[in-house]
């Protein structure tokens, strides 16, 4: 069996599961974000009384942190009441950050577990050897009532990433390359196992970037076999004992793809689709693309490593007068580290705006909305029409280095000239 199948088997009380089977599995941790007051409504509509286990469910208020209007503030109030009424042990209010960063930091993510959250980017936790998957509000309400959810055991695709990334090529470029090849529906209903020497040597943050965007290929979940970095990270934080699962050597993948990372160059996902991927060189060759906003943040591109490279590129420089750069640290912890290391100060001196840790403008909620005709280069995960505001704005997805270099020049720019 594959490690993912072993996780599903263990949590559904079976010795073996196979692709295509429907199983009902115990959920080790359930997270509800602040877009999903409907979860509370569905819970009571279905006759829910108390959350099944107050140590295994939590709210993270990240999409509206802090509340931008009366409606979202009222939603927060109702969710806080539900959390209090159920005496939830963990609660992450508007002072914490993006759920997919906050949960691992708090130690509720560890190898061999199943985490379900009301957020599609829950595939991120494959970085830790966990099975993470997103669901909607009513599915979440059934989990809060029963501690379980039904799953179809997914077919598993192997994406082997071999070699070392050249200078200027970051995990974001690598996953954009995979996305451009497999396309936005390349893994619908399936799981992706990222393997290979590149993955083995990737640090925690880099692994999270790659697994995070697996959902943009349609994947139900992503997986990476934990490496030393991961085990060191979780050993300091995990709130429960855990067991790493391993894929059997004779496991047969449904499909396998191999990509040589060493020949990649910086990439962009061009408007208006995540799989509309081209090389930076091609885009630049087609003519200058003026940029009005740079954005570094989100569960994809708002970690210490992302802010560090932007600070390195922009230290001692100044962004153009009529351009703007928005930095949204992924969590309170990330922001504090970046302040201790002076990155935040360097970026602010260069003209950046730093906002509250959270999801910010990534989904067009607040703090950096785009006007019609604007162009944003962003380290986030989606460039759908209207995603960050006006449907008439263009969003290019890129590595944080490309964002920083581009905003510095006021047009899309190759970061290799700046590092």
């Amino acid at each position, binding site marked *: 069996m594959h490690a993912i199948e072993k996780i599903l088997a263990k949590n559904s009380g079976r010795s073996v599961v196979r692709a295509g089977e*429907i199983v009902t599995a115990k959920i080790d941790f359930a997270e509800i974000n602040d877009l999903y007051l409907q979860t509370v409504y569905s819970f009571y509509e279905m*006759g829910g009384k108390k959350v099944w286990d107050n140590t295994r469910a939590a709210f993270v208020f990240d999409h509206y942190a802090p509340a931008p209007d009366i409606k979202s503030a009222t939603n927060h109030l109702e969710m806080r009441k539900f959390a209090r009424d159920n005496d939830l042990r963990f609660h992450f209010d508007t002072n914490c950050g993006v759920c997919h960063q906050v949960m691992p930091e708090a130690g509720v993510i560890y190898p061999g577990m199943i985490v379900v959250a*009301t*957020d599609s980017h829950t595939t991120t936790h494959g970085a830790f050897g966990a099975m993470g998957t997103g*669901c909607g509000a009513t*599915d979440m309400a059934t989990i809060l009532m029963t501690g379980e959810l*039904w799953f179809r055991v997914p077919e598993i695709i192997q994406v082997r990433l071999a070699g070392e990334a050249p200078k200027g090529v970051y995990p974001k470029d690598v996953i954009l390359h995979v996305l451009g090849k497999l396309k936005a*529906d390349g893994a619908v*209903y399936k799981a992706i196992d990222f393997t290979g020497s590149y993955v083995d040597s990737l640090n925690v943050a880099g692994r999270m970037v790659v697994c995070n965007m697996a959902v943009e290929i349609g994947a139900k979940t992503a997986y990476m076999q934990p490496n030393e970095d991961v085990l060191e990270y979780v050993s300091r934080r995990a709130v429960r004992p855990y067991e790493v699962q391993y894929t059997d050597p004779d496991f047969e993948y449904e499909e396998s793809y191999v990509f040589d990372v060493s020949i990649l160059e910086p990439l962009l996902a061009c408007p208006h689709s995540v799989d509309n991927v081209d090389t930076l060189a091609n885009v630049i060759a087609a003519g200058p693309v003026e940029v009005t906003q740079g954005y570094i943040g989100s569960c994809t591109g708002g970690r210490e490593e992302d802010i560090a490279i932007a600070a390195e590129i922009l230290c001692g420089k100044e962004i153009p007068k009529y351009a703007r750069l928005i930095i949204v640290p992924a969590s309170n912890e990330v922001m504090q580290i970046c302040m201790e290391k002076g990155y935040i100060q360097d970026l602010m001196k260069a003209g950046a705006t730093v906002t509250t840790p959270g999801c910010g403008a990534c989904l067009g909620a607040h703090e950096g909305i785009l006007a019609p005709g604007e162009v944003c280069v962003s380290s986030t995960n989606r460039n759908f029409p209207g995603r960050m505001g006006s449907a008439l704005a263009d969003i290019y997805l890129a590595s944080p280095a490309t964002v920083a270099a581009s905003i510095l020049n006021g047009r899309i720019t190759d970061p290799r000239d700046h590092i």
Partner: protein
Amino acid sequence: MKAQFAGKVTVVGNNIDTDQIYPGCFLALTDGKEIGSHCLAGVDEAIAANFPEGGIVVAGTNFGCGSSREHAPIALVNMGAAAVVADSFARIFFRNAINLGLPLIVCKGISKKVKDGQTIIIDIEKGIITIEETREELICDQLGEQAMKILEAGGIKPLMRSRFGADE
């Protein structure tokens, strides 16, 4: 859920993501009717305003990709959609819609065969869609057993209510 029903068709394209079905700027709303009035605003704001009660949305591949927001199927239901028929669906959207009792039908190639304003007749049990104007019959994929069980109960909520004895 009715085994057979007919509705006027509204056709949209491939990879219609949940931001286009329900834009992020409306996510704090909680009233169903209000949510329904913004349905598919990211494709064309006129769709919800003119959508006929019991109409059917026809889409290309990967309908509902992107964010897990349940607002997307809630908006479709409240706009008056009786079903969505597509070449394929994204996974989380699929679960969310079935949970709400909104039938989703996979019918490969449908988005190229029907035009806005035509009427289709859906027979879920037989897995056949008939285009009323041309009488052409299209074969659909069968829904899985679990999804059918939820749809037949009218969604996950009635199922859970009976399991937890909430109606007694």
